[in-house]
């Protein structure tokens, strides 16, 4: 399986503060990576750095052979990144439909296909971003990343605020998409079991460094290790 993403010795943070230290990871085409870690360990920072929204201090990112770290944030979407930010960040003065069309790129995913996946959004096509329920915003954020027709989806806590049944559906959909369309995905979640089941690989962060990296299946079969890595005991 061809390698899609390769991150080496990544260092990044906010302003002068460095949050990520020497993070390296890689991901193949059509694979899903579960990015785990306690609160505030830098998961979002890693995702945002890949999307170009945080200041990168060092290291390299390559996506399908393209040196992503040399590109400006807006050029990365063209290179194949699809980003679902943690706080959803729906464009509030655009309608649902415009939220999708404003960023859409040619490819198999178009707004209509998103509407098929989230029927709820189709009913709310003309609502403004502010006129959506919390869960609808989350769906729109995922849909908005899909219409970019990315090679790599970055999903930052995409299940937060969704009804259990939608969570189920969404997980199934992600599994299907990665399998059938060769899309790769990185998913951040605080509740590991749900996503380990559909992931191929798992990476655990702590204090901005990778403390565990391996197959997802193996990790989900070792509850005690998982507990130790993500344990509730907080510093």
């Amino acid at each position, binding site marked *: 399986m061809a390698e899609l993403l390769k991150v080496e010795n990544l260092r990044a943070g906010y302003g002068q503060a460095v949050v990520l230290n020497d993070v390296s990871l890689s991901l193949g085409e059509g694979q899903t990576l579960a990015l785990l870690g306690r609160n505030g360990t830098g998961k979002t920072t890693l995702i945002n750095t890949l999307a170009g929204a945080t200041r990168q201090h060092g290291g390299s990112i390559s996506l399908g052979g393209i040196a992503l770290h040399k590109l400006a944030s807006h050029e990365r979407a063209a290179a194949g990144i699809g980003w679902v930010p943690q706080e959803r960040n729906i464009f509030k003065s655009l309608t649902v439909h415009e939220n999708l069309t404003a960023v859409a790129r040619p490819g198999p995913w178009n707004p209509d296909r998103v509407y098929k996946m989230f029927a709820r959004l189709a009913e709310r096509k003309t*609502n403004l971003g502010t006129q959506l329920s919390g869960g609808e915003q989350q769906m729109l954020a995922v849909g908005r990343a899909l219409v970019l027709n990315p090679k790599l989806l970055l999903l930052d806590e995409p299940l937060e605020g969704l009804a259990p049944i939608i969570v189920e559906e969404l997980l199934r959909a992600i599994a299907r998409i990665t399998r059938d369309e060769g899309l790769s995905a990185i998913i951040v*979640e605080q509740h590991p079991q749900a996503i380990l089941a559909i992931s191929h690989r798992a990476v655990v962060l702590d204090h901005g460094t990778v403390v565990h990296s391996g197959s997802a299946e193996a990790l989900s079969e070792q509850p005690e290790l998982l507990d130790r890595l993500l344990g509730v005991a907080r510093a």
Partner: protein
Amino acid sequence: MSTDQIHRNDADTVLSAQGLVMRFGGITATNNVTLNLKKGARHALIGPNGAGKTTLINLLTGVLQPTEGRITLEGQDITGLAPYLRVQRGMVRTFQINQLFDSLTPLQTLALTVSQHRGLGTKWWQALGRNKQVAERCEQLLAQFHLTEVMNQPTRVLAYGKRRLLEIAIALACEPRVLLLDEPVAGVPAGEREELLQTVAALPAEVSVLLIEHDMDLVFSFANFMTVLVNGTLLTEGTPEEIANDPRVKAVYLGHGEEAHHG
């Protein structure tokens, strides 16, 4: 069903909504909903995304005016009452998305809320912290919500978790008799969720709580009564067991697999 429920509107119902309808243009977000909140209830409101849960809270608190229907609080009609007056009558809410006073510190926020609640909000000749009872109440709240260390930092620089705690602390500072919580633990780390809800559960027994939440483990451990809303319409009500085993609820909301409860 609805007439039936209006008649059940007996003495221990604190907050009651009868036949509420809310339309946004062509969208009917709330469709003839009737809901009774009992005194001391730990009542959960669940339902799919966009079912109209937040809208219902907005109607109850007066942020939105219902297209049709009536709301009563402790037997009095409050349908047209201004939001702040409802608060003064003891109905307090939290917001799904934090609504805080960004430039004030947690301490100032709480002091202000407590002062306002104790009728000192129009005092202009005395400094904010002058009243001893207010200061003591603030101290309590800060300690209870782990905000003491950050009490003098402007709210806008606080970490998300702290901001979330403050959001709930503000509601409690109003000494509510009816508390409406809209996804209070969204974004709060898994480990802290239980603790937070315990604080709420530990409120005096006569306080009624209405909770909206998608984390089913929490909901089932908290609630003693549940209402399910679907597409703006009331689907069913009952005890947690009844709801958990209701096939309709499973079909539209809970789903099937256990793993679906991401909690």
